[in-house]
C-alpha cells in the first residue's frame, strides 16, 4: 500500500496517471507505472489512444509511445477538413534523428488539430493524454471503436511487447 501511495504521489507530481490498481504491485514493476495507461480511453496496437465524447473523438499517442520515441522536436499534422482512415497514417512525429508515423485508430473527418504542437511539440512527451492531443475527428464509423483495446488489454499488450524484445 505504501509503495502504491508513493508511486501515485510521484506520478501526480510528474503529471501522469497511474494505471489501475492491479498494475502496481512489486517494486520491479514500478517503472511500468510511469508508462501510464488511462481508463476511459481506447487503444490501438500502434500505440495511439482515442477518447470518444459525443460526436467527436480525440486522438494522440500513448505514454508508452512517447517514452520509447524520446524527445519530440517536431509534429506533422493534417489540415482540418481532411479525412483519416482506420489503421493508416495521418501525421508524424520527429524525435531525435527519427520520424515516426502516427496512425489513426478510427476513420472520420478531421475537425480540429492541436495548433499548440507546432510551437511546443514537447507537450506530447509531458502530457500525452491531455495537452499533447493531436487531432479531433468526427467518426464516420463509431463501431470501429469496439475493435480497439481497453486499458487493461493495452497494458498487457505493452508488457508482452516489451518482454518479447
Amino acid at each position, binding site marked *: 500500500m505504501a509503495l502504491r501511495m508513493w508511486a501515485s504521489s510521484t506520478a501526480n507530481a510528474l503529471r501522469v496517471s497511474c494505471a489501475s490498481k492491479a498494475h502496481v504491485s512489486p517494486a520491479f514493476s514500478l517503472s511500468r507505472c510511469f508508462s501510464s495507461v488511462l481508463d476511459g480511453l481506447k487503444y490501438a496496437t*500502434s500505440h495511439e489512444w482515442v477518447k470518444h465524447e459525443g460526436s467527436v473523438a480525440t486522438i494522440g499517442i500513448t505514454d508508452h509511445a512517447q517514452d*520509447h*520515441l*524520446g524527445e519530440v*522536436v*517536431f509534429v*506533422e499534422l493534417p489540415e482540418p477538413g481532411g479525412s483519416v482512415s482506420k*489503421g493508416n*497514417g495521418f501525421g*508524424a512525429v*520527429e*524525435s*531525435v*534523428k*527519427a*520520424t*515516426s*508515423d502516427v*496512425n489513426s485508430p478510427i476513420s472520420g473527418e478531421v475537425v480540429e488539430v492541436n495548433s499548440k504542437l507546432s510551437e511546443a511539440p514537447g507537450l506530447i512527451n509531458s502530457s500525452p493524454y491531455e495537452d499533447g492531443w493531436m487531432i479531433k475527428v468526427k467518426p464516420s464509423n463509431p463501431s470501429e471503436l469496439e475493435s480497439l483495446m481497453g486499458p487493461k488489454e493495452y497494458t498487457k499488450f505493452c508488457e508482452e*511487447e*516489451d518482454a*518479447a*524484445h
Partner: protein
Amino acid sequence: MTISQTRNVGLPLMKLVRWKGVPILQQLHLEEQLLRTSSENWCIINDGTNDPTIVMGISGKPAQLLKLDSVLNDRIPVIRRYTGGGTVVVDCGTVFVTFICNKDAVPGLQPYPQPIMSWSSLLYALVFRGFGDFSLRENDYVFGNHKFGGNAQSITKNRWIHHTSFLWDYEARNMAYLKLPARAPEYRVARDHLEFICRMKDYMPRSVFVDRTIKAVETYFSVRPVQLEAMETNLNSKFSHSTKLLTEQELEAAAFESHFEKGLSHSL
C-alpha cells in the same frame, strides 16, 4: 551445401543494391518508395554522390541551418528529406549505407529509434574492429570524439529505415555552407565543423569499408545482390515522395525573411 550457405539458412533475406555516384535525390526517392511500398528487406550502398548537395532533415528550416547567401550564390542544391535528424553536405566523398527492414526482421529488436540505433552500432562495430576507436555517441558514429557518420531514421507501422552518410572525405569549403545548429550533441562542445568531424579515409581504405559492411550485414541477413536502376524505378512510380528539392524561390524567400528579421532585431 557450402559452409556460407549453411550459415545463411534461417536468416531473413536482404536485397543488396550497390551504386556508385547516384544523385542523392534519386537515392532518397527510391528509399522512401521501398520503405512505403515494398515488403522486403533492403540494403543500399551508394558509393559517393555526383554533385555537392545539402540535405536537411524533415523539419529543417533553411534560414536556421544554412548560410543562404553562399548557398544561393554558389547554386548548391538543397533537399529536405523524409527522415529526421540534422543537416549534411554530401558529395563524391560521401558513402551512403541504408537499411530498410520489416519490423520483425531482426529478432528481439523493438522498432523504435534507440534500439535501432544501438543495433546499427553493433553492426558497424564489426566493420570498424581494429581500424579505430569506433563508437556510437549521441546518435553519431565517431572515432574518439570526432564524427564521421551521421544517422537518420523513419519508422512506419511495420517497417523502418536507418540510413547513414559516411564522411569518407569532404571539402572544407562545403562545410562552410552550414551554420552551427541550435540543436547539437553535447559532445560537440560548440566546436565548429572542421574540428568536430574527421575523414574515414584516414582510418581505412574505401573498398575495405564497403566489403566489411556487406560481411557484417551477412551476420544478420542472407544477402542477395540485385540490379536496380534508380532512374527507372522513379519514372515508373506513381508514388508521392515527401523528399523534396527546394526551389531557388523558396531559398530566396528564406534568405529574405532571415535578413528582414535580422534588420528588425538590430533596429530594436
